[in-house]
């Protein structure tokens, strides 16, 4: 299950919300978005000319995901496995 290519909304710790297509994510959870637009009326800077962006992982507060693209069973199983790995 990969959300690359899907539309997400990234909410930053400075209250900016950026909507865009998920291009890639790395080990630090840095995010690259393409074709971005700003959601949430008052809380945005003027980024009219910006198409693509790179967001440092540490400044992210939330990422809103499309619910029907997410396999919750898979996630829960993966989390249990991950927890096991951590104990070892």
């Amino acid at each position, binding site marked *: 299950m990969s959300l690359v290519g899907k539309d997400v909304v990234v909410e930053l710790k400075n209250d900016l919300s950026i909507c865009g297509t998920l291009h890639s994510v790395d080990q630090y959870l840095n995010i690259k978005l393409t074709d971005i637009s700003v959601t949430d009326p008052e809380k945005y800077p003027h980024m009219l000319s910006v198409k693509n962006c790179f967001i440092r*992982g540490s400044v992210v507060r939330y990422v809103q995901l499309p619910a029907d693209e997410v396999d919750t069973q898979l996630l829960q199983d993966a989390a249990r496995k991950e927890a096991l790995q951590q104990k070892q």
Partner: protein
Amino acid sequence: MADDVDQQQTTNTVEEPLDPIRLSLDERIYVKMRNDRELRGRLHAYDQHLNMILGDVEETVTTIEIDEETYEEIYKSTKRNIPMLFVRGDGVVLVAPPLRVG
């Protein structure tokens, strides 16, 4: 003997701090975050950083307004609903079962 090893790996007792969170997978939980924010949602995934994925989330943001004349503190809260949310762990302060009134 294989049983012993299995028992060690997937126990239902709470030993380490992240165990109660593991037991809360697919359950509704309450998350207190920095900046006077709270989340209630169904826990789908988490990791050792407390990054989490929550479904059917309600976020509550609490603010205090000061009345200019009386200087009294007015508590206001703003809620919103999000169907599926990734939460970065560095904002998380507390994770618990949902608060039940009465």
